[in-house]
């Protein structure tokens, strides 16, 4: 059982970095939440936990316009992208996503909103502890594009004034779903 303190720390720091944390407790609740948040197109790449629970079907049943193909064409107009998370890092409030599959990258870089499904079991204390699963990912696959994501995109380049939302997403939503997955090597 992951230390509740660790989960609380992750939540606190992630919020501090501008992420919205939503403990949803189940896929059904997650889908309901998403239906309220997303009125436009939702990009849904293929990821292990999503496939396992037929997220695509559930989202469509809830009336969401789900796109699963031709992301290069659809991504720029899409409102949101939905992915899983391989694991999270508590001390910086960060998410680690194995994004070698281009669709994961397109879904998480172009739309204005990024939603993630995170099992709170998959949280490590800090960036140095994260190297264990990172190394495993490198060993398992000959090529990698692994993304650490901490809050939405930001800049302070104009007069040092912090502005949220630049080229990447403007909003990041972390849906906490216990029991979703305990495997760091899958999303």
């Amino acid at each position, binding site marked *: 059982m992951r230390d509740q303190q660790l989960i609380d720390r992750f939540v606190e*720091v992630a919020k*501090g*970095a501008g992420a919205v944390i939503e403990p949803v407790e189940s896929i059904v609740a997650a889908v309901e939440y998403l239906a309220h948040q997303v009125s436009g197109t939702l990009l849904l790449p293929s990821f292990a936990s999503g496939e396992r629970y037929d997220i695509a079907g559930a989202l469509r049943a809830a009336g969401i316009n789900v796109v699963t193909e031709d992301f*290069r064409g659809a991504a*720029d107009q899409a409102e949101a992208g939905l992915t899983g998370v391989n694991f999270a890092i508590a*001390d*910086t*409030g*960060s998410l680690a996503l194995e994004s*070698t*599959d*281009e669709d994961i*990258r*397109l879904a*998480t*870089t*172009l739309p204005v909103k990024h939603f993630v499904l995170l099992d709170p079991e998959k949280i490590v204390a*800090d*960036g*140095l502890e*994260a*190297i264990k699963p*990172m*190394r495993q990912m*490198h060993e398992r696959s*000959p*090529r*990698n*594009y*692994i*993304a*650490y*994501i*901490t*809050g*939405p*995109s*930001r*800049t*302070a*380049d*104009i*007069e*040092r*004034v912090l*502005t949220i*939302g*630049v*080229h*990447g*997403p403007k909003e990041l939503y972390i849906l906490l779903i216990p029991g979703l997955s305990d495997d760091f090597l899958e999303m």
Partner: protein
Amino acid sequence: MNKQRSKEYRERIGKALATPKLQDALHKFGDAYLLSREKAYTGLNFEEMRGKISEMKTGVRENHTELLDQFITNAESAGAIIYRAKDADDANRYITELAKRKNASLVVKSKSMVSEEIHLNHALEDAGIDALETDLGEWIIQLAGQKPSHMVMPAIHMFKEEVAELFGKETGKEEPAEIEHLVEVARGQLRQGYFNAEIGITGANVAIAETGGIALVTNEGNARLASTLPKVHVALIGIEKLVPTLDDAARVVQILPKNATGQLLTSYVTWIRGAVPCDGEEKELHYVLLDNGRSELAESKHCQDALNCIRCGACANVCPVYQTVGGHVFGHVYIGAIGIILTAFYHGLDNAAELVKACIGCRSCVSVCPSNIDLEEIILHLRETVGDEEGIGAGKALVFRKVMQNRKLFHSMIRAASLLQKPVTRGERTIRHLPLFFSPLTEWRTLPAVANTPLRDSFDKKVQKIDKPRYRVALFGGCANDFLYPELGLDLIEVMNALDVEVFYPKDQNCCGIPAIYSGDKETALELARQNVIALMDEEPDFVLTTCPTCAMALKQNFVEHLKDLPELSDRAEKLSSITVDAASFVLNELGGAGLFADAADGKKVTYHDSCHLKRGVGVWKEPRQLLETAGFDLVEMAHSDRCCGFGGSYSLTSHPHISKKILEDKVDDIRASEAGCVAMDCPGCMMQIRGGLEKADMPVQARHTIELLAEVLRKKK
């Protein structure tokens, strides 16, 4: 010395000093940065972290060939195409030829200082290829046709009104000068570029030998897009960016954002290993590994630590000179302390020569460097190199080599000056106005007159009656104590005698040599080290006391370094180093003497100024405070208590008086805001600067040496 180059440089300084908006922005940033940085390191041990980074990066330099080979092998087996570029031209040629082969008309770039270093955009444009910067700050300066003025925030010197005007030209309509709106405009304008470009060019914050991959530390999301959408990805990597393992990379990633912007972590850290899928095919991935002077830098024993830099920009953030004149003056392509060093090796000594002299020597950079690089020491070494190449100037050569090395001649000239100065001192201890072309020297602060009787003459006249002395100590007065403030030395005798310590003044002591080092004259410094070690150790004192921390640094560190290859002197230099101590620390730690002064002061409000060389040179800042508090002063801290006062030796007098003036203004403002009636410090150089500034500003605040205050308290007690 290049007169034209010097003239142009001074004009740039003048322009920067005439833009208070820039200084205001950089000062505010410096303050905000320190607060968020402190917060980011909560619960962490910065000293320990930077020790590990330093060790790791030094190992990288020492094992560079093997690590580079390992990186290349792993990168190639993951599908990367490697090009080892010798220099800027070589890298530019490779990239432009690649772009031509791909029929690329547009290249998108995420932020890369290396690409600035080699002027890549110029080379591409010359070849008819558009290079679009996507990092917001870089795009802004690209539109403005300017170079970055900071390594992490390139457009820190620009204001929203200017940005709105630039963007308006791009969009063809008037854009409101509202920051959130302007960022939205940039998002919209740059988006299509990612789709249209044939090539995406990024830098790399680390290159990991273990995996053959790189990591990019970013906030905006543009590096993710630039490395995903275009069919070709070129990563421009300085060969010093290597780290051995993923764990080492994690340590760099852990410290870099905290030190750069005070963030716990940037919004994105992107770990790319090999050629990843791209629109149904495989990305064409090129790593351009750039040397451009890095191998030469690795060979330089004095400067090689500079290769440990992880490009956080903190050295500029905390630099009082940078905060006063900005990166376009205190930099070339790379800015701040590290910028000076890299400019010398990557862009040539000629481009670094003026910059090398513009460092005031306050060591604030050294205190925040996450790779523990002694940046100031390296800059002083480069100043010596410039001195060797170009000469140190006829005036200085005369003073240092012909006069100062001959102690008797040097001191008799100062005595002569004390007589000749009468027309301008009019018998007073301070000079308020110098005539004719000397008048700028006293425009913004008064100067002390040369004392009628230097300390070395009045010393023996002071009666020291101690029955059983605990210790017999030598006083190393230093030029300021000896010739400007002899009363400080006499006060020290009083304090010491009250604690049963006998003091003597070795007459053959000469200038400590730091002014020569700061002017690039190693030869004179060496000769002075020799003279002083012999003079001070002759009567085998128990301790050697200093009232000037610059002198303390010379005795504790420089002399040992200068004389280490002279067996007949090196032992004595080591011994001297071990027995040298600043007066305040001696009173508190060695003598346990704080109690003697207890509650003797009348609760007078005092604030404390930390001299650069006391705090960041010999590591003392608690002792004077403890003495003052125990003595019953009401100690109130001023803002920026450890920020330089602007003295810097000849910096304030001859080399950069205008920058010195501005830095002094900041210090006087902070003293005023503290509402203390007295500012204490442990350095006669700072005394000269701060006293002079307070007097010129007609502020009734006293500037006193801690020892002076303690002596005063003793006299009151009697």
